[in-house]
Structure formats: C-alpha cells, structure tokens
C-alpha cells in the first residue's frame, strides 16, 4: 500500500471555485480560466502515490504549482477538491484535531527559507515538534539532540539560528523535522536557498541519511539536476498539472511531451548515466577450468588483446594479455594463475559516468563493472565516448 496518495487534488485560488473546476473539466487552460472567472488554478487534478522509503521529487518551474501541491498534502493549504490518503486514511476529510495529530506524528516539513524560530536555541528549535506534543523534557531533549547529531550539529545546540550559516540552519530545519520521527518528510525547495557547493553536500547527506533511515521523502525542487540526483521517481509539473511521472531515466529517455523534453535537453548526460548503462558483456575465461590455450583462442575469436579471468562464482580474478598467454603456451604452462594480472580498475555498477572518465583515461585495460564483488560487465573507452556522442546507443533499460 502506498504511504501517501493524492487523488485528483485541485486547488483554485479566488472566488469562483466551482465554476473554475467546471471549466477545468471542459479542458480550458489556466489562462483561459483566469480570464473567465478571475480565479487562479494552483493545482489541477494531481494524482500520484508514493511508496514507503521512496524519494519522490516534484519538479517544475516557479509558478508551476509545486509548492502549492506539497502544502495540499498536509493541508497547510486546503484543497478545493480531491483526496489525500496517508496510510490509507483520508486526510482531506479529517477534522482539525485529527489533522493536527497527523501533522504531529506522520508528516514533517522542511522549508525553503528554513523557517527556524529565531528566538529559540538550536536545541529548542529541534525540540519544537515534541514540545507541542507535551513530551517530557528529558525525552524531547534526548530525541532532539539525537536528530541534531544525525545532521552533524551536535556541538551547536545552544546557539541561536542567526549564529549559523545557511547550510547549518537548514540542517537544523532537517533535524527539527526528523526529531518527530515522522513517516513522511515534506521538503519544500529545502536546498534551493543554499549555494551550489553546500547544496550538493546536503544532497549527498540526504541520500546517506535516507539509506539508513528509510523515510518517505517528498522533495520539491525547480532544479532538474537535483531532481535527478535525489529522486527515485520524479513528477514534472507545469501550470498546476503533473505532466509526467517516472524514474529519472524514463523522463530523460522518453519525455512525455515537448515541455518535458525542453526541460531535460540541457541535462549533462554524464551525471545521469552510470556504469551499468554503458558496460558490455565481458569476455571471460574461468581460472578453474581454462588454461592459456583457451584464453588465447577466445581472444583471437573476439579480436581482443586481453581477457578477464573469473572463477566459477564469477568473482573477478584479474585479466591475462595475449602476450602473456602465448608466452605461457610456449613454456608449456597449463595454469592461468601464474600469468593473471590483477591491476584492473573496478567500478561499481552505480558509478556515474563522469566519475568513470578519469579512471578509464588513466587505465590501459578496460574497466571492470562490479556488483557485490561479482563481475557484471566491462567498459571500454569507446563506449564512454559513444554514450556522450549520442544516447541512442546506450542501453538505458539496463537493470
């Protein structure tokens, strides 16, 4: 069951809400409805569901309705129409008290401009969510401290927010949201106010945190690079409508329409593609079964000058060169262990292509692509260049 689900969520700002919704049904655009009714459509029939542990990114340019959409999810803005289900409960029909309870226990929010309380210390800020639930003082201090340590601010607990840099302030914002131990984190352009270096650092940290915490995160951003880095899935918004939902690769490779295509055409492909997308099936010999003769034969067949050596469990042992193999054959050596070389560079299947550039540039051999110590493929120089030149030859459906 999805942990959070939006069904036909709409928000119309202005007076003639009913009329505007009717016109939406007729398929009129946002501008036409504004002209006709004087009402602004913020979000138009947004539907999606987010599974537990997922990072779901909602992306769009400013004015696309993404910040409104995230506020509909915890009803900071009341939906005009539609439903929000959290753990199967319909949030949109709840009374004030139940809604407050959900906000306290299940949904926490991180804000673009941090929204820290300037009159409270860092610790008191992180405690806020627990304080209003009347948690005992010791417990809330302990949990707040733990959250602050998690984001690396354990030493700053008695400072005031204004004494901290932007990046640190947003860590406090994150700690404040985490201290409640919510199921879902709503992050509204959480890193957009930070400078690029700090932003990247925070993104990495969020990914690290996520790998241990397994929260469900709904992340709003206008930055495609950020969306692609963080998102397990991405929803693209335009004029209040979700135009496409998919994994980063799906969105890059199969843009749903011109708008998405325009959005993604400037993306640096080398940041998106990983080793698994450009690797080839490796030619191998088995160290336990084969000798130099077989190795030489395979190399001749494939027209290559070296071949990878594995054992029966596909553990990579190294590689042998054609030169070494023919030398060994002359000397009547039967076993590959004597001539196997181990200085082969390895990368993980998730390594980004931009990080592979340097490795492959320095290497005389192809690069081995590993998954949990097992050999999965190889990357030759030509494949990297081909991938950059045109994405059509890249196997993006690799899994």
């Amino acid at each position, binding site marked *: 069951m999805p942990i959070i689900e939006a069904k036909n969520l709409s928000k119309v700002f202005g007076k003639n809400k009913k009329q505007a919704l009717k016109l939406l049904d007729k398929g009129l655009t946002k501008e036409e409805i504004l002209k006709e009714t004087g009402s602004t459509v913020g979000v138009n029939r947004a539907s999606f569901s987010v599974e537990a542990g997922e990072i779901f990114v909602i992306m769009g340019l400013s004015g696309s309705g993404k910040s409104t959409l995230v506020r509909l999810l915890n009803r900071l803005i009341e939906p005009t129409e539609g439903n929000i289900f959290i753990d199967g409960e319909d949030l949109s029909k709840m009374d004030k008290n139940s809604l407050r309870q959900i906000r306290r226990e299940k949904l926490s929010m991180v804000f673009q401009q941090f*929204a820290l309380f300037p009159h409270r210390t860092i610790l008191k800020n992180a405690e806020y969510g627990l304080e209003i639930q009347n948690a005992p003082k010791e417990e809330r201090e302990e949990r707040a401290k733990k959250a602050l340590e998690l984001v690396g601010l354990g030493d700053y607990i008695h400072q005031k927010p204004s004494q901290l840099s932007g990046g640190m302030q947003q860590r406090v914002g994150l700690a404040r949201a985490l201290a409640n131990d919510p199921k879902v984190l709503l992050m509204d352009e959480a890193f957009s106010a930070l400078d690029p270096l700090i932003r990247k650092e925070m993104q990495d940290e969020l990914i690290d945190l996520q790998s241990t915490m397994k929260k469900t995160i709904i992340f709003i951003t206008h930055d495609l690079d950020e969306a692609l880095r963080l998102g397990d899935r991405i929803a693209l918004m335009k004029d209040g409508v979700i135009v496409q939902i998919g994994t980063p690769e799906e969105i890059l490779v199969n843009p749903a329409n011109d708008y998405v295509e325009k959005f993604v055409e400037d993306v640096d492909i080398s940041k998106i593609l990983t080793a698994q997308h450009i690797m080839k099936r490796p030619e191998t010999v088995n160290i336990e079964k084969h000798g130099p003769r077989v190795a030489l034969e395979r190399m001749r067949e494939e027209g290559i000058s070296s071949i990878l050596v594995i054992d029966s469990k596909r553990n990579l042992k190294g590689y042998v060169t054609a030169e070494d193999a023919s030398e060994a054959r002359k000397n009547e050596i039967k076993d590959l262990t004597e001539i196997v070389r181990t200085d082969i560079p390895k990368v993980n299947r998730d390594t980004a292509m931009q990080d592979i550039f340097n490795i492959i540039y320095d290497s005389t051999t192809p690069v081995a692509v590993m998954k949990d110590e097992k050999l999965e493929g190889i990357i030759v120089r030509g494949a990297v260049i081909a991938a950059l030149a045109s994405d059509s030859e890249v196997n993006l459906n690799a899994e």
Partner: protein
Amino acid sequence: MLNNALDFIPEIPLSDAAKGVTDFITDKFSFLFNPIKEHFGNFMEFMSEDVLMNIPPVIFIIAVAILAFFISGKKFGLAVFSIVGLWLIYNQGHWDNLMNTVTLVLLASILSVIIGVPIGILMSKSKAANAILTPVLDFMQTMPAFVYLIPAVAFFGIGMVPGVFASLIFATPPTVRFTNLGIRQVSRDLVEAADAFGSTGAQKLFKVELPMAKATIMAGINQTVMLALSMVVIASMIGAPGLGREVLSSLQRAQVGPGFVAGIGIVILAIIIDRITQNMNKKKD
C-alpha cells in the same frame, strides 16, 4: 433657495443623544462604577500615600538608579540622570506630587496593557474584530482627550479614578495597534512551520507569535506609557492629584515659576520612564 438648501431636516439632537447615552450608562452601571470608584480609589490612595510616599525618597531614587543602570546595559548615563533628576524634584518640594503622578501613570499603563494586548491579539486573529475595532481606536485617539473627562466624572466622580479612566481610553490604542501589527508581521514562514508541526492555536500564539512580536508590542507599550503620562495634566482638571495639578493651578494663577518647576518634573519623569521602557525592548533583541 440655496441659503437653506441644507436645512431639509431640523438639527439632529446629537448632543442630547450623547448625554442620554452617558446618563443611561451612569444610571444602569452604577452598580459597577460605584464599587470600582470606591475600592479602586482606596487602592490607589493606598498605593501612593501608604506605599510610595512611605518609601524614603533616597531609597526610591537609588532603586530607580539601579534599575536604570542594569536595564540600559550597565551604562551610567540614565542612572546618573535619574539620580539628579529625581533629586531635583525632591529638592523643589514636589516629591508627594511625583508619587501621585507615578501611581496614576503606572496604574493607567498596566491596565492599558492588560486590556490592550488581548484586544490586539483578537484583532490580529479576526478580520471582523479588526474591521470593527480599527475605527473605534481611531475615534479614541482623535477625540480631544478633554472630552473623556466629562463621562469620566459622570461615572466615577472626581479624583484619581476618573483620571485613570480617561488615561485608559486615551492611552490604550497604541498597545492594541502595535500588538495587532506585531502579530500580523510575524513571518508567514514561521506561522506555517508552527502549523505544519501541529501546533494548536494557543501554542502558536505563545510559542511563536507573541515572542516574535515582542519588540513591536513593547514599542506600543512605550507609546502607551508616554500617552498616559501626557494625560496627567489633563486628568488634574478633574481632581487627580500630582504634578499635573501644580501645572494646572499655576496656569490658572498665571504663575510662571511654579508652572515651570512642576513642568520640569513631568519632563524628568517622562524621560526616565521612556528610556527605561525602551531599553526593556532593546535588551530582548
């Protein structure tokens, strides 16, 4: 024809109406006004004559100086001014008058704050309250302060109590306005954050909005205290004792000297109170 174009109806009996309302209130609420007049009057008399006037002036002056010293961030300026200023008032034989004035100003200010802050909060939360009360506040502030003396006398007779009542009406609006403004000015982000974490209305108010609005509210309270002080001369017209009465009687007898001396006393008191309340504000920033 044009000469009587505006005489389409006879004069509206506005003044009779005002009198009628006042008489009505005096009559119907005397059960309320009389005990207030009596008990509150006794209390004020007790405050000024039995408490403040029994404190030896030298102790009072030192206490004010110490308060001034610490509240201005351990600077000597205001403390020294307080010592010299208050001594001068003592030296001129106006100590008892000063104590009466202090009582009047303090009580009027405290009541203004007690009444004004909640009304300000109400206005910040309710559009309807805001729409109704804003013109009322305008009326209270622009109506010449002397006019309040008339119903004040009708309700409470003469003396300190009607003085406080008139001061209250005149001095409360800034506290109300600044409280309203201060809460409305709290950043939307912070209010949103408080809501997003599931605060109740009261939690939001006391943990976020009021602390954030404190500086603005304090500025309003400072204004209120100053207005209350400015009422002391006017209130003396209905028998409120203190420095104001000295100014008034000097005016009536055209005595420049005593008028100046009592006036200086008010100025000194005003400066001390103003600087102290302003510094209370700054210290918290």
